[in-house]
């Protein structure tokens, strides 16, 4: 009989869990829709800006602006963009793995490496690792907007200009589709033109600038870095919501299956108990 009670208790608890995962799935789905929308709206701007910057960077010499100038030393800063929260499948662990792989593959070329973070999960993981840790940009997704991104990009650009590091690489989950995310890394500083760009044809000396080239550069280059960080954060956020939605969806399904199995064994146990009781009664009656 104790068995029956135990199974009933388990069914209730699994059902409760299922309700929670179902609710989390709904919330993630709603957030995903909004995140995806804002990501799609932001993409053309980031992409066009990248094209323009590429053309510009290809047509001026590196010395024209410090953000374009590659440096001899290689003190690398890696901005790891993960999620603030868990329960989103392999989202964070895949990203962390990709970051570890990137570090292992490139470390020999670096003079030094420093990790900076947006998103709590990667920061928590790397805190226990033997890497040098830099700033953790708390609350980058809380909320994810232009002001919070500005804070991050301004700090990073300032440190770069102050010669605190020589190269900025970001690693983040790209939003491929609702069910698929892919860890990507990109070098943001110094700015490198997109090489496979067909737009990169001769930009010639007759390119006109107004007001002056240098003024435009010092306006455009930070804007570009900021836009790319903003885009990466949005990609990551949308990807996180997608990952959480599908993780919670399969959790809900699993819970459903478990409830079915438990119900089956509950019914079996109940029948077995009834049979035993009947046998007891009948044999008791026969003994009279």
């Amino acid at each position, binding site marked *: 009989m104790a068995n029956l009670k135990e199974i009933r208790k388990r069914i209730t608890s699994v059902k409760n869990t299922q309700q929670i995962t179902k609710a989390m799935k709904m919330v993630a789905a709603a957030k995903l829709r909004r995140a995806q929308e804002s990501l799609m709206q932001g993409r053309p701007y980031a992409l066009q800006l990248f094209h323009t910057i590429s053309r510009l960077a290809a047509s001026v010499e590196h010395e024209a602006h410090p953000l374009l100038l590659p440096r001899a030393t290689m003190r690398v800063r890696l901005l790891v963009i993960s999620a603030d929260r868990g329960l989103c499948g392999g989202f964070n662990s895949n990203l962390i793995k990709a970051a570890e792989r990137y570090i292992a593959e490139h470390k020999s070329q670096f003079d030094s490496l420093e990790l900076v973070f947006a998103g709590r999960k990667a920061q928590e993981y790397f805190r226990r690792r033997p890497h040098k840790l830099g700033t953790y940009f708390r609350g980058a997704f809380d909320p994810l907007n*232009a002001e919070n991104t500005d804070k991050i990009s301004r700090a990073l650009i300032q440190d770069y200009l102050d010669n605190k590091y020589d190269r900025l690489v970001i690693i983040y989950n790209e939003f491929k589709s609702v069910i698929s995310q892919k860890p990507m890394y990109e070098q943001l500083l110094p700015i490198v033109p997109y090489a496979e760009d067909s737009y990169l044809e001769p930009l010639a000396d007759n390119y006109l600038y*107004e007001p002056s080239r240098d003024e*435009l550069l010092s306006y455009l280059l930070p804007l570009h870095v900021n836009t790319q960080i903003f885009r990466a954060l949005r990609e990551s956020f949308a990807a996180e919501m997608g990952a959480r939605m599908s993780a919670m969806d399969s959790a809900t399904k699993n819970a459903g299956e478990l409830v079915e199995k438990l119900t089956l064994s509950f019914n079996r146990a109940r029948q077995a108990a009834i049979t035993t009781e009947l046998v007891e009664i009948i044999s008791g009656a026969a003994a009279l």
Partner: protein
Amino acid sequence: MSLQLRIVTPTGEALKTETTHVTLPGLNGEFTVLSGHLPFLTALRIGVASYATGKHTQNLCSLGKGFVEVFANQVTIFVQTAEKALDIDKKRAQDALSRAEKALSNSSHNPNDPSYQLLLEDRARAKSRLLAAEKAI
């Protein structure tokens, strides 16, 4: 030959169209881009852009701060905000302008204060929106 005109903002692509010429508010005054223009990159002031499509020779669009690139008959405008004149509600634009004026008159009037600069920009944007809305057909 025509120009490919695109206006992109961080919150979306505001406009993508073919046009024969486009007039923009440059830092040093208005200028018009025709097809075959030299590659060109310039900062823009808050103001109104005007472009021709088909029968409509003067479509207006209110622009925030940004810049424009002209390259191979493609005009790409990068701005913080953009609004087509026909989408602007005149009444609300008027209200926004008086709000901006009021905020400005209560402010520090110190040209080095960044918040004062922001208020000036707000007013300029409100003005350009109202202007675009009034001129729209």
